């Protein structure tokens, strides 16, 4: 049981990561691909926060009478990564909009066909 609770977080993180990777490589729709990338990204966030968690620790805000805190460093890294992540997602979505305007489709297969017939 201890072995299970020790590693459960990491297994779910790996599962989410693989779901994201699968979405990116197996789906042809570009919006779906962006969502897959986002799931992959969130799984990395969980990996960092899981590593930073200390059993019985408190949130890293200094309070009187609390001795044990969680590791603040992963929180800092992930906090900024989330905001940078949404900015880059917006960039990807902007590219999708431009692709739609030039090719009139966002399905990968149809874009390939159009490229070959040009």
């Amino acid at each position: 049981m201890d072995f299970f609770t020790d590693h459960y977080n990491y297994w779910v993180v790996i599962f989410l990561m693989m779901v994201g990777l699968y979405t990116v490589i197996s789906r042809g729709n570009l919006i779906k691909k962006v969502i897959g990338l986002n799931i992959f990204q969130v799984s990395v966030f969980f990996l960092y926060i899981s590593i930073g968690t200390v059993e019985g620790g408190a949130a890293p805000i200094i309070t009187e009478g609390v001795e044990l805190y969680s590791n603040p460093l992963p929180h800092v890294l992930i906090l900024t990564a989330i905001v940078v992540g949404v900015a880059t997602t917006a960039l990807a979505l902007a590219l999708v909009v431009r692709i739609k305007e030039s090719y009139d489709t966002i399905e990968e297969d149809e874009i390939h066909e159009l490229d070959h017939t040009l």
Partner: protein
Amino acid sequence: MKPNLILHVVSKFLIPLIILFALYVQFHGDFGPGGGFQAGVIFSAALILYALVFGLDAAEKIIPSHLLRILASLGLLIYAGVGVVALLLGANYLDYTVLGSNQIAGQHLGILLVELGVGITVAAVMLIIYFAFAGRGRE
């Protein structure tokens, strides 16, 4: 879009509260959870809600897009400027200790200014991105 009475009344009630909360998160970030990144995103969420309910034109009257471009650069400039000021006062880049009379005061002022810069840039960039997407669909 047809005007919806419930949406209008509820959002008019909620938007000031969301903005107030964003300011609280911004300036109370030293003591509780919060800071520039969160406050910027919450602030922009309030204005995006306004744009969704009342239309993009009404939202652009509140914050015109050229002002947003200035604000986005201004936030980054404040951040980098704090570093340059520290440099001119004889310390390392982004070492806030020299900004105040003692170490604690200097660090406090530096963190406050830097978080303000972060908040302004994040809020402005999120609004720029939303306005770009929403404006693209306008004929």
